[in-house]
């Protein structure tokens, strides 16, 4: 069923894509500008309308206070752990932000949480897919960096819900990429996926066995990517300008955005050529010019690129493998186009990496493969099954502020652990549990996921109650907790305070608006598109009436066409999509002979020595009506 079509979405730091399985292979769905990539940029225009993607990019330079990029870096994070980001990125936080509250970003005078901003991007992708299918899209598989923690995953899932998408699965990006590669290779062996994107780095090691994709180990850094290279180059340019001209532009948002654009272009150019130059027009007629060679560039970025080595070595160690035991290495993410990065991977794994699939698209293609598997599969995906792992250990805080790990990193998910708790005071009714994620020994060095309060424990002497708490990490890498008091058999009530993230009610409130809006959007857009199509066919008919072919029709035929024309003119002003559609189709049928006659006369004109172009074929009603672009804000 078409309405059940599940799309695969790569919600990237820099670019986002939507893909689906067409017949037996995954394809990317382009936007209405024809581009496969939707830049992950969101802006608020002067009329407070949300603009997404390429159209939003100009706002980055013209009105930086109304635009935001790389919002993925803020997903699932608190204000205290983004201090580094704030130094490097022009994020404008709401002034009234309270400690412990979900971040809110200012766009113009409005504020939005990172999941809402991501939802705007998702909604754009959803629309692109709907335009492509001509039907609503409500289900998706969304990819996340493998090293995303629980809060970051939850935030991504929330974004999906806010955008009106049921997120059937969160898939790790490198794992998705391996699915796309595995689809046509169908081989067994050990594969390493090195994924360096705009803002995140992942390394995953998988074992492929007769269609089973078993992740053995994963590691990474959720704050390492092409963004860091850009920021380094921007800082150098700003320092240069200050040194040479005494101009401090670091607080000039517009200039920083201009420099950012120039350094990104230079970075890309240096992947293909040995040197490039960039020139930036500065205030007061000044000009900043600089030539940079690939060699200099490689020296500059060495420390950034080297940060990927540690995670790779750790992943190999966790997988209990030596580099020479890896059969294939796959490169994913735009930053792997940099020759220096490729050289490093080749050295690390002692083999030439695969680059046959477009590193920008491979994750979305893999997400489409997983979407197809969840939808029941097809011939191409038969027998394919993904077994992923949790990237970080799950622990609980015990006496002395120590983390007691209960599910270790690289455990295949779903994974679970059961713990038993008791009381310390007679009649104690509540027990507090602090859940952590991370590898460090002390609780304060790990990521706080949530605090749970077990409530309503029946009154008993201290130490008597036996509360069974079950921790389960689902196939999305998200934690679920349930509890039961064993002596009384009562389900214990759990009150969850997520350390970071939106509550269910908050998400619910955000959805309702945008969901209604999205549904209404879709109907409105359908009507507008059908109306445009009606205009096209009516205009073609007017043209046909003036052609010699019109005279060849019988009176009855003309009468019939006039009737259908009137019918279409009538329904096209109404909001009934199906009625307009039907009227278009019947008029199309009714004018078939007219179109044929027009075609014949055009051909005979051509035979008289005129070219087809000169013959003015006109757009006969049957000439197939291209779907007119909707005039839609």
């Amino acid at each position, binding site marked *: 069923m078409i309405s059940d079509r599940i799309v695969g979405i790569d919600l990237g730091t820099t670019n986002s894509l939507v893909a689906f399985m067409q017949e037996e292979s995954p394809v990317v769905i382009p936007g209405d500008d024809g581009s496969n990539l939707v830049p992950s940029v969101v802006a608020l225009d002067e009329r407070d309308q949300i603009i997404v993607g390429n159209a939003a990019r100009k706002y980055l330079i013209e009105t930086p206070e109304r635009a935001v990029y790389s919002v993925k870096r803020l997903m699932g994070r608190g204000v205290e752990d983004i201090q580094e980001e704030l130094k490097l990125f022009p994020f404008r936080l709401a002034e009234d932000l309270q400690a412990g509250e979900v971040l809110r970003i200012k766009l113009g005078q409005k504020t939005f949480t990172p999941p809402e901003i991501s939802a705007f991007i998702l909604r754009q992708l959803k629309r692109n897919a709907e335009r492509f299918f001509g039907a609503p899209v409500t289900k998706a598989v969304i990819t996340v960096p493998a090293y995303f923690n629980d809060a970051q995953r939850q935030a991504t899932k929330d974004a999906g819900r806010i955008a009106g998408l049921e997120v059937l699965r969160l898939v790790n990006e490198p794992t998705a990429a391996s699915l796309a590669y595995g689809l046509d290779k169908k081989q067994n062996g050990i594969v390493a996926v090195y994924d360096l994107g705009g803002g995140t780095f992942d390394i995953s090691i998988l074992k492929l066995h*007769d269609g*089973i994709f078993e992740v053995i180990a994963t590691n990474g850094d959720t704050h390492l990517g092409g963004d860091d290279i850009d920021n380094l180059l921007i800082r150098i340019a700003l320092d240069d300008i200050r040194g040479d001209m005494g101009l401090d532009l670091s607080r000039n948002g517009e200039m920083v955005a201009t420099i950012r654009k120039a350094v990104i272009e230079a970075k890309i150019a240096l992947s293909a050529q040995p040197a490039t130059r960039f020139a930036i027009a500065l205030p007061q007629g000044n000009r900043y010019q600089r030539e940079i060679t690939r060699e200099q560039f490689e020296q500059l970025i060495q420390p950034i690129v080297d940060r990927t080595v540690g995670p790779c070595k750790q992943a190999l160690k966790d997988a209990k493998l030596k580099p020479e035991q890896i059969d294939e290495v796959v490169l994913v993410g735009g930053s792997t186009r940099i020759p220096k990065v490729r050289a490093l991977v080749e050295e690390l794994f002692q083999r030439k990496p695969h680059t046959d699939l477009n590193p920008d698209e491979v994750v979305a293609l893999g997400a489409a493969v997983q979407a197809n598997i969840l939808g029941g599969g097809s011939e191409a995906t038969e027998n394919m099954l993904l077994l992923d792992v949790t990237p970080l250990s799950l622990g609980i805080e*015990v006496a002395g502020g120590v983390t007691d790990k209960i599910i270790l990193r690289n455990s295949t998910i779903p994974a679970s652990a059961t713990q038993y708790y008791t009381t310390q005071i007679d009649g104690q009714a509540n027990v507090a549990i602090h859940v952590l994620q991370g590898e460090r020994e002390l609780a304060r060095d790990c990521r706080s996921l949530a605090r749970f309060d077990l409530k309503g424990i029946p009154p008993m002497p201290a130490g008597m109650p036996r509360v069974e708490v079950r921790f389960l990490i689902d196939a999305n890498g998200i934690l679920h907790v349930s509890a039961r008091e064993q002596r009384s058999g009562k389900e214990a009530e759990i009150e969850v305070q997520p350390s970071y993230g939106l509550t269910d009610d908050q998400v619910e409130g955000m959805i309702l608006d945008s969901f209604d809006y999205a549904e209404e959007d879709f109907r409105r857009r359908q009507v507008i598109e059908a109306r445009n199509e009606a205009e096209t066919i009516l205009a073609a008919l007017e043209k046909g009436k003036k052609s010699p072919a019109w005279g060849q029709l019988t009176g009855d035929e003309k009468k019939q066409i006039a009737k259908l024309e009137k019918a279409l003119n009538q329904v096209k002003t109404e909001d009934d999509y199906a009625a307009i559609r039907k009227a278009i189709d019947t008029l199309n049928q009714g004018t078939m002979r007219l179109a044929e006659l027009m075609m014949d006369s055009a051909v005979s004109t051509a035979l008289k020595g005129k070219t087809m172009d000169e013959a003015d074929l006109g757009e006969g009603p049957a000439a197939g009506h291209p779907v007119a672009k909707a005039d839609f804000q």
Partner: protein
Amino acid sequence: MAIPESKSSSSLIMPGEATSTCWSCGTMRAVHFCSACGKVQPPVPVDYFTFFNLPRKLNLDPAILEQEFYELSRKLHPDVYARAGKQEQEWSMEQSSLLNDAYRTLKDPIKRTQYLLRLEGVELEEQSKNATEKARATGEVKKQVVPPDLLEEVFELNLQLEELRGQKKMGEDDPALIEEIGRQKLELEEKYEALLNELKSYWNQWDKAVDTGTEEDRRQVRDKMLDLLNRRNYIRNLVRDVNEALED
């Protein structure tokens, strides 16, 4: 702050229950899915050996276990139930988490042995774990019983570590001492590895005792394995201490 009552209970220790009938088609079913219609079944509390339909023995072919893991994954994984009803999805999540937990435990030689000992009612690490937590809470130095065969070595090594820490405090550096400690560390690591082979000989004894031995035979092998695991832990902690002293 809540205190976990016991770590040992982090697994479902219950005797295997008799399988009943499939909720969907009524046929007699396996533990996890129906052998007739293939549908996932509500989880019943069984131990990991029963889950894989294995006897409680310690010798086990990892390749066969892996094959079985893959096959059960194809039947139980939530991806397979993405279009099923809520109830089936929940069972599939429960069942495949059990499958993954069981596989993770059984495929690792040490975890497998520890798990079996717990199933047999042996209290593992319990004392040392509680002692560790208590020591952490009170700041006391934890006392540990040194395995007799290591007594001499450990005494010597501790003296040297003491000396090394002293020197480091004074900013001195004695390459000969560091080399000597490094050599001992290597020996400990070799011993650590060798213990695995010793453990495997106990597996054979255990498996034989399960088939033909008396309760007393089994008790003796259990004690030997417990003793070996404790020694192994002791050496591991020692190596960690040495590494810390060398790094500081």
